[in-house]
């Protein structure tokens, strides 16, 4: 049934429909609404799950690693500093091949203390072996969270569903909340391939010396490759039951586009409007949304950008000493592909600064006017500030 729902609650509804069995979390703005609603569902019996209140995010994930090892469906949610505190255990969850699902509300890292949208928190965790998905609206958040359990359990890897702070987490909009029966058809109960079992005692995560460690890492990469393939099949099934699909990437008017904007998260939604308006003015512009960040959909990216003369990546994140993180990934994906378009990198919207239609349009015109990328990244809309550090 379509109803007006907050982005955070789209996650909560999805977790309820997925019949998660153990939920563990520590509150942090702007994630709190997600687990607030879930704790209510656990308290009033709407969801038959154990809700664990813990003393930190590190403990929240540690508790789920224990729970998931015993073979149950698990969920947590966090943001920013909370995710950073989980870092050690993020590696553990993927290395132990546990299908834990996490909602991550993208919020800036401190200091300066900032609770607003910024993807640097989750992108800084890119090498932890988690599948990462970035959503643009409440419907996609709900659908993706349900799918995340299916995907995680299929490849035995943890999945992080990312949503922008406030622009998505605190925004109310119409969302179709499917009925339990349809979700049950798509997502059957979790059948673990291995678990802690009193009847069949065994030990997990023991010493892995040099003669086996590399193979274990390679197995994780194989699971990542499998995730890319399975995602498509899974989306087909989801579509046949629930009538929607979103795609690892989505190409909007890219076929004849000379310039393709590449976005992730809520910027994609606003960019759809910008591209439609620029098209009306006769501009040959397209939009490529990247939803799946890990595994990175390299081949899809190559195919969709092949005929463009330039691509412009908008990053609401930054890797100090380098450039925008999606831009790095796009460059890496294209570099061995002869005749690929030059990649322009733009930094915008850090710490919740608004990425308005004007900002996006400006990025398009800057790219069109330029003959070649001049910087690793161009920062859009910077104010005049005193940059002097160590120069007295």
């Amino acid at each position, binding site marked *: 049934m379509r109803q*007006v729902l907050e982005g955070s609650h789209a996650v909560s509804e999805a977790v309820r429909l997925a019949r998660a069995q153990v939920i563990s979390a520590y509150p942090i703005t702007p994630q709190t609404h997600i687990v607030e609603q879930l704790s209510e569902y656990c308290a009033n019996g709407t969801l038959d799950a154990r809700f664990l209140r813990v003393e930190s995010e590190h403990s929240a994930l540690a508790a789920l690693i224990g729970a998931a090892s015993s073979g149950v469906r698990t969920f947590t949610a966090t943001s920013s500093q909370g995710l950073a505190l989980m870092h050690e255990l993020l590696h553990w969850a993927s290395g132990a091949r546990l299908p834990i699902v996490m909602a991550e509300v993208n919020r800036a890292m401190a200091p300066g203390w900032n609770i607003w949208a910024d993807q640097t928190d989750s992108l800084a965790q890119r090498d932890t072996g988690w599948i990462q998905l970035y959503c*643009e609206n409440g419907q996609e958040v709900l659908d993706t969270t349900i799918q995340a359990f299916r995907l995680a359990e299929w490849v035995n890897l943890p999945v992080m569903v990312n949503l922008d702070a406030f622009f998505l987490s*605190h925004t109310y909009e119409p969302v179709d909340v499917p009925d339990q029966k349809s979700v049950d058809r798509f997502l059957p109960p979790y059948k673990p391939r291995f678990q802690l079992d009193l009847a069949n005692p065994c030990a997990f995560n023991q010493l892995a010396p040099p003669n086996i460690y590399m193979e274990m890492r390679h197995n994780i990469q194989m699971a990542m490759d499998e995730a890319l393939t399975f995602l498509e099949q899974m989306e087909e099934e989801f579509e046949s039951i629930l009538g929607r699909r979103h795609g690892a990437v989505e190409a909007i008017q890219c076929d004849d586009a000379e310039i393709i904007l590449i976005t992730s998260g809520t910027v994609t939604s*606003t960019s*759809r*409007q910008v591209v439609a308006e620029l098209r009306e003015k006769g501009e040959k512009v397209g939009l490529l949304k990247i939803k799946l960040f890990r595994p990175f959909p390299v081949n899809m990216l190559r195919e969709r950008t092949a005929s463009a003369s330039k691509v412009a990546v908008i990053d609401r994140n930054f890797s100090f000493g380098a450039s925008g993180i999606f831009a790095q990934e796009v460059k890496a994906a294209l570099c061995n592909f002869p005749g690929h378009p030059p990649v322009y990198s733009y930094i915008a919207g850090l710490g919740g600064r*608004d990425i308005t239609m004007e900002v996006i349009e400006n990025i398009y015109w800057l790219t069109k006017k330029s003959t070649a990328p001049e910087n690793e990244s161009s920062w859009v809309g910077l104010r005049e500030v005193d940059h002097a550090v160590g120069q007295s």
Partner: protein
Amino acid sequence: MVEIRFHGRGGQGTVMATILLAKAFFRDGYQVQSFPLFGVERRGAPVEAYLRLDQTEILIRTNVYTPDHVVVLDQTLLESIDVTVGLKKSGWILINRPSPPANLDSFSDYRLAVVDATHIALKNRLGTRTQPIVNTAVMGSLARVLGIPSMGAISEAIREEIPRQPKANIKAAETAYKEVQMLEVVER
């Protein structure tokens, strides 16, 4: 697309008003989007929230800069905030106050409406004497000023979302709908 900006103070139900209105407009067939100005809310501190409505899917996910209308839940905000910033010409400014202000200079180019939502809230025992919750009265008056959404949709949204005193809240909305005073374009 219509964009409406709400100014209130923490504790008045400003954000809740935009959520309830979003639900009411959705009932009446509109596409909607509502969100607060993303800050750290505290009781008594200025709060801003926004509502977008359209006939088609709303794609834009940015703050509201040029609202079509403005709603002010606490008139003391007028002393510290220019509520007309970015407001489109001949847009409505709906203010919670007993009567129109004597000096209308700062409202030229706009349309002004006033409703004594505080009095209505107190009469219906919504909130406390020092902290009346005026949001449902303001919703009712806005429905009259704009001609949308329907009062039926507002009542339904209140009934579904407000577990405490739904009847008193609906009564407040209905009273405000009747009592709001609308001035046409204010001229200098």
